């Protein structure tokens, strides 16, 4: 259950351990590769690292993103229309790694299946990737991925949700490496006005089952919410709110400026929650 280090650099578990020492939650920031362009998305990811994100979640746009709300679905759709390819993710992970943060890929399963799970794991490790978050792959179906990630030393992050039974939480967390992704509420990605109690409940239920760090995702969009979640979670995952900085901007440069400001606010939040 220790972290995977990939082939180069600091691992996800190392970052989470360091944050724990600093008595704070980690900030995990999501952006999809290819929006608005491959280069633009990479510039935005690097900017996030500079502005205070601890771990970057690099999304691969998918034609049928059924876990995603309108903001991320729109960005994915645009990225695909502009011709983003699955292989572009490796360019992004390399750049994030060089910027000093561990890159975790977030991908729907068919893209990895098509590439070949073993080949994907090998290619990702070679590109400095730390592991993969698989939103539509449950451990029960993940035999090949578990073997491939073991062979390549990659982290594998499965999800638990407020609806998960204790037995499911136990079996999911047993197969995670790096951290456990706790979905804050029942629904798809997208900013929410309030985080509610469901998130803290699922975190404490998950912590009862595992010693792995537990990071919370779905719905966080402000520094205040990040602080609220940082009080009980090991990491705060932010997606749609960051993507929206880019989708709503007039151009990439101004988008990145807004993005840096939001990351700084969120980084402040994860440091003030406890």
């Amino acid at each position, binding site marked *: 259950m220790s972290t995977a280090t990939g082939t180069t650099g600091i691992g996800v578990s190392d970052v989470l351990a360091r944050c724990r020492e600093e008595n704070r939650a980690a900030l995990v920031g999501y952006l999809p590769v290819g929006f608005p362009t491959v280069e633009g998305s990479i510039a935005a990811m690097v900017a996030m690292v500079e502005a205070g994100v601890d771990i970057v979640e690099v999304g691969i746009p*998918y*034609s*049928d*993103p*059924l*876990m995603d*709300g309108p903001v991320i*679905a729109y960005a994915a*759709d645009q990225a*695909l229309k502009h011709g983003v*390819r*699955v292989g572009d993710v490796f360019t992004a992970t390399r750049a994030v790694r060089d910027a000093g943060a561990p890159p975790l890929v977030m991908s729907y*399963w*068919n*893209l*990895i*299946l*098509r*590439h*070949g799970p073993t080949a994907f794991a090998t290619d990702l490790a070679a590109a400095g990737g730390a592991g993969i978050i698989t*939103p*539509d*792959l*449950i*451990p*029960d*179906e*993940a*035999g*090949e991925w*578990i*073997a*491939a990630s*073991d062979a390549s030393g990659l982290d594998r992050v*499965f*999800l*638990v*949700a*407020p*609806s*998960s*039974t204790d037995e*499911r939480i136990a079996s*999911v967390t*047993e*197969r995670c490496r790096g951290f456990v992704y706790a*979905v804050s509420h*029942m*629904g*798809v990605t997208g900013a929410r006005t309030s985080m509610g109690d469901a998130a803290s409940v699922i975190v404490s239920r998950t912590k009862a089952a595992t010693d792995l760090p537990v990071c919370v995702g779905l719905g966080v969009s402000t520094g205040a919410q990040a602080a609220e979640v940082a009080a009980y979670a090991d990491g705060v995952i932010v997606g749609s709110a960051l993507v929206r900085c880019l989708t709503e901007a007039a151009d990439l440069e101004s988008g990145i400026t807004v993005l840096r400001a939001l990351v700084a606010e969120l980084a402040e939040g994860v440091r003030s929650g406890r």
Partner: protein
Amino acid sequence: MTDQTPATPAHGLVPEPVARPGRFGDFGGRYVPEALIPALEELDEARRKAMVDPEFLGELERLHRTYTGRPSIITEVPRFAEHAGGARIILKREDLNHTGSHKINNVLAQALLTKRMGKSRVIAETGAGQHGVATATAAALMGLECVIYMGKVDTERQALNVARMRMLGAEVRPVPTGSATLKDAINDALRDWVTNVEDTHYILGTVTGPHPFPEMVRDFHRIIGVEARAQVLDTAGRLPDAVIACVGGGSNAMGIFHRFLDDTDVRLIGVEAGGEGVEGGRHAARFAASSPGVLHGTFSYLMQDDDGQTLESHSISAGLDYPSVGPEHAHLRDTGRAEYRYATDEQAMKAFELLCRTEGIIPAIESAHALAGAIEVGRELGPDALLLVNLSGRGDKDMHTAAEYFGLIDGDAVPPGTADEPGAEGDGRTQL
């Protein structure tokens, strides 16, 4: 860490099948967010209990008898069959069911399950609108709140069914994203489900999706084949040489095939939508041109690009316009128990017209694909053959498309008809 052996898989894609529920050979499974797993388990348990509960089975049987109109009749179509090599052709008349297609079989059963699970709201996707209409109907009958997701393209080509659903009290939500057809409607239905799963059941309309849907929906349609087998034996004194059905997701086909699986002399023939032809890529003939992959929670054949992005399918028939296919069909195909061919838009519309003109039956355009397949198979097998064709639905909903296709509305109201001339095979219009 895992009980699966990551050995060399059959398709180079998945581990050797371990005996586990929800798999048909390599195909099937449950590729959905963890958040939905408890609902799928709850559903699985509820349907298992229901299928051995005399009360549930009795209630479903009563509904089918007094509401659906079961058993549906069979009709022999000799004038149509003259154009199919003179083979003997019998239609299973699912078009005569209440709401106009086979879809009601599955929907009534799932609506009963919804009540047994204590849920008050149902959602569904729909392509042609038949499944949406059936779901709206069952919701009205049982007092359930109902939301239907339908691709925007489909709301336009099946506008009449949108009005029917709204008339029945359902909310219809047009889905503008992606290709704005059936696959995108399923995406939005799944998003709704994961958000509202506590009080909502997703009445999936075909034999795809995560386990237990493919198995459960098949079981609810199995009555088609059970009835038809007995009816054909009664009428013809023997089993058919082939059973033919159109395949979108594959529910009407699984429904009529399943009872015949052990009758190994009976050929099971699925007909997919060939659209504008397989060469140009504008089709939904998954078995003619696709490869295994995951979409909407199941591992099956899938139209996808080199990266694994779903490709858009195309068909004149909204109900067959789907880039994947039920996993049990994938298994039946790979094991050779069933065979699959396709009919193009043009072939299907010729068969559509032919059945209208020769038998006075207006089929759904989906079902017309099965008829086109029957014409081909009849010609291959000759006059001694006995074919059972599933007429999965009626064509009222398709009048707009047909009127446009045949130019029935402005001026030239009557298409040049030759269908009632015996031996019209040679004129090119009914040639398949």
